[in-house]
């Protein structure tokens, strides 16, 4: 989970960052589910790993793939 977070922060290609953020969100949902908060984990899986990824990919398609910094 920490690895995916660091890759998402350090990647130059923004599509890689979005995919890593989605994987981070999914692992976070698995962690929530394991710790007993099934409702929070469910919300995290649906919103974080589903809709946020789709909206970020659409945002990338309208702007650029590469970071400038």
């Amino acid at each position, binding site marked *: 989970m920490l690895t995916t977070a660091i890759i998402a922060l350090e990647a130059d290609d923004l599509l890689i960052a979005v995919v890593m953020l989605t994987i981070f969100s999914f692992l976070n949902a698995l962690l929530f589910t394991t710790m007993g908060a099934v409702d929070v984990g*469910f919300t995290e899986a649906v919103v974080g790993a589903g809709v946020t990824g789709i909206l970020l990919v659409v945002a990338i398609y309208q702007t650029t793939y590469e970071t400038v910094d």
Partner: protein
Amino acid sequence: MKKRVASPIVLLGSRLLSPYIMVFGLYVIFHGHYSPGGGFQGGTLLAASLLLIRISSGRRISRIQFSDYLTTPLAVVGVLIYFGTGLVALFAGGYFLDYGQLPIPGLDGAELRYWGILIIELGIGLTVMAVLVSIFDDMVRGEDE
């Protein structure tokens, strides 16, 4: 998305997957009383099944499934279901969203709360689905025009 050739394999895969996501979303909404989930998660699952078709196919095919001018009226209908239920309970003598005071004949207190929560969550799910699809449509429309 503009000017991309729709792959038939991707389209077939998302067409196979989308109804099951939709059925699971309806299950989450209707079983939100006694299992994890509820209106928000179920509405998001319904929106995910619509957005899957919208991503994999073009605008023309996705408009056949769910037109983009339907999103704002459906969101308004969902909000009106929520506040209408709350206000009916308020005017029937209870507090706002006091499900035990809903004037439905033939039901006692526990069943009234059961059905009240179900109606509320239907409204929430409708609103969340419509608003998420509307956000996606607005973002894509900014690209096309």
